[in-house]
């Protein structure tokens, strides 16, 4: 925030400060100050002229001295008035002190009226020109300062990451700039004026104020204090207008006596436009994200349907085939054959059940916003439950567990992470021969916990590694006798881990076998 700090100092000397900071300007004091300058400088000119006379200089030098005085007055005072005053005063004093008869306002020499006249005109023109020059300079300074302010706001707004942040940064900047309470609100994605940020005052919570800025939002024109509409409100509200209409409203509570000139309103509008640009940018981004999300869900749904037909048909064919064979040939089949068929039906049904559970998880994802039921869960409980679920069908596989000795709690959706482990364990068991070893481990890192599920099977070809999390991936080496691939399961693992803000990867172990590794943050 170093930039805003230094910026604040540069705003301090702005001419607008008087108005913006809202300090009543003491006019009497200003007049006295200016009159003092006039009197002081003209007296000095008179003194110098007296010096010149003592030295015996020519009269023209006195005139030049007075004109120099007028020029200085015009430069050091505010407004034309004092320059004119100095011009007239100069002519009169010159006449009084330095023309014969001395110490009167009468001049004998017939040439003097002309001298006085020319002197007055020269003095007047000089003072007006100097005044205008000065004014121009001040205006340029104001302009430059305004541009600096706009630039500063723009710079701060560049770094924002969300709409809410835009409001925050804008409100803070405007507040810093004017030293007045500020409200910045914006329409949400549905076009309702629901997002807002207030800096410095609670007056904005008033019903009356809310009505005023709703009006500004709907009508697209300024209202509130200093305007015709809702003039009894304490804040001035003006819309943030972008290309697609009104995006939001800015409200500023200026001090009571403060007058909002047209040029100031224009300046405020410029600030509004700048914020509008950023808001529009954010809005576009939001919409884009939403569309992206929808596309992902749409694809997921499509894949799901394909997966259903693809992965369901095979086991169902098995079940229908085996059971119909048994029904039709009940008397001719031996007990052993029947048992084999029954085992086949049982296995296929198990498989289908597993699939259904995974599909249920996918639909949970596909139903729109991924709502994870996150809670602080103990790692050991999740691992234990996953292993016990898999053990029912693990057959001859040996499952080894290795987790930290201390109790580790992580913020996760327990059911989901359990499903990930179940899928990975199932996958390991499906692709390794009986008697293989499967290891589940968890280890703590700085801010992550790393889970690993590895087996001592053959692993998969390096060229297949990048595709393993793709839907419908099947190892090329899978012969028709082994179980179908578990593509959907791995895809779901990836979705779940990513939804938790973690990462999942796979690699072949140097000693043979495959290792799935996923990380989860240990803090929210």
């Amino acid at each position, binding site marked *: 925030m170093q930039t805003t700090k230094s910026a604040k100092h540069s705003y301090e000397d702005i001419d607008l400060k008087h108005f913006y900071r809202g300090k009543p300007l003491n006019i009497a004091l200003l007049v006295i100050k200016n009159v003092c300058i006039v009197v002081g400088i003209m007296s000095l000119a008179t003194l110098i002229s007296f010096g010149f006379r003592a030295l015996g200089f020519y009269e023209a030098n006195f005139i030049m001295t007075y004109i120099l005085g007028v020029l200085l007055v015009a430069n050091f005072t505010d407004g034309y008035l004092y320059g004119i005053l100095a011009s007239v005063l100069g002519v009169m004093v010159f006449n009084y002190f330095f023309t014969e008869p001395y110490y009167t306002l009468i001049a004998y020499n017939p040439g003097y009226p002309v001298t006085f006249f020319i002197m007055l005109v020269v003095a007047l023109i000089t003072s007006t020109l100097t005044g205008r020059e000065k004014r121009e300079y001040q205006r340029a300074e104001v302009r430059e300062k305004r541009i600096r302010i706009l630039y500063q706001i723009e710079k701060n707004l560049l770094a924002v990451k969300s709409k809410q942040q835009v409001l925050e940064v804008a409100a803070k900047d405007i507040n810093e700039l004017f030293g007045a309470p500020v409200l910045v609100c914006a329409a949400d994605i549905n076009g309702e004026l629901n997002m807002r940020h207030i800096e410095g005052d609670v007056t904005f919570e008033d019903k009356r104020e809310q009505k005023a800025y709703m009006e500004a939002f709907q009508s697209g024109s300024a209202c509130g204090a200093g305007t015709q509409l809702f003039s009894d409100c304490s804040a001035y509200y003006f819309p943030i207008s972008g290309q697609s209409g009104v995006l939001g409203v800015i409200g500023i509570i200026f001090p009571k006596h403060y007058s909002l000139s047209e040029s100031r309103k224009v300046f405020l509008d410029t600030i509004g436009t700048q914020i509008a640009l950023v808001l529009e940018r954010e809005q576009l981004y939001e919409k884009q994200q939403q569309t992206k999300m929808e596309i992902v869900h749409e694809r997921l749904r499509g894949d799901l349907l394909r997966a259903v037909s693809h992965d369901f048909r095979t086991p169902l064919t098995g079940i229908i085939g085996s059971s119909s064979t048994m029904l039709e040939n009940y008397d001719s089949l031996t007990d052993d054959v029947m048992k084999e068929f029954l085992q086949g039906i049982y296995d296929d*049904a198990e498989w289908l*059940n597993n699939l259904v*559970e995974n599909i*249920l998880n996918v639909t949970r994802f596909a139903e729109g916003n991924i709502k994870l039921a996150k*809670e*602080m*869960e*103990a790692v*050991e*409980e*999740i*691992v*234990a*439950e996953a*292993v*016990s679920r898999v053990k*029912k069908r693990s057959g001859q596989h040996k499952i080894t*567990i290795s*987790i930290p*000795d201390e*109790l580790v*709690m992580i913020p996760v959706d*327990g*059911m989901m992470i*359990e499903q990930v482990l179940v899928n990975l364990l199932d996958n390991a068991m499906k692709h390794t021969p009986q008697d293989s070893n499967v290891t589940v481990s968890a280890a703590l890192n700085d801010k992550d916990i790393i889970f690993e599920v590895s087996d001592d099977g053959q692993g998969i070809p390096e060229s297949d590694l990048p595709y393993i999390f793709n839907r419908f991936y099947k190892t090329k080496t899978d012969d028709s006798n082994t179980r179908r691939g578990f593509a959907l399961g791995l895809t779901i693992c990836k979705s779940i881990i990513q939804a938790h803000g973690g990462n999942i990867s796979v690699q072949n172990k140097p000693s043979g076998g495959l290792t799935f590794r996923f990380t989860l943050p240990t803090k929210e």
Partner: protein
Amino acid sequence: MDTLILIVEDEKPIRHFIKVTLETQNYKCLEAQNGTLALSMIASHRPDIIILDLGLPDIDGMDVIIKSREWTKVPIIVVSARGHEREKIEALDAGADDYLTKPFSVAELLARIRVALRRTALEGSSDEIQLIFTLDKLKIDFEKRKVQLSEKDIHLTPTEYNLLKLLAKHHGKVLTHKFIINDIWGTSSVDDTQTLRVCMGNIRRKIEIDPAQPRYIITEVGIGYRMVDE
């Protein structure tokens, strides 16, 4: 006397397979395909165990639990699908004794029935409070408030002891987080679930050889805890 089991399930194939299974184990079975019929059969036949599917065509399975709990303590085992954890918790809190997740194996079903029967027998046999609880190598002496594992004393904090005692008293039965928190801490809020998990982690470190493969206290993810029965 034969044990009488009421099967409340609207799907005929499932009802049938449960009945056949139970009859091979010499249990007597009654069938009800809806909740109203189930309620009247509970009143007229006084079954020893009820197996209740929560998704019934006429009335909510939950109502069957609540209505029958008004006058009978008959063990109720609810049947519900995975993913319907909330439903299971509600049923357990409403007075159901146990649950089975669909699809379940025959072995699981029979194990749950055995637990339920043993609990009824235990409660019916004597009003005396059981003074010593033993399970494999774990021994809890309620009178002396002492816990031993393989004859070695285990030191538990008062809360840990109360929690272990609660689970031991209801061994074989799944206790919901809410039930446990209410009993031990007297309140129930989200923070307490975390406290409960930490407390359970500490107990496991003291009584389990491998907390990741618990022998005594099993986690029912999303529901609660259960002290194993055998």
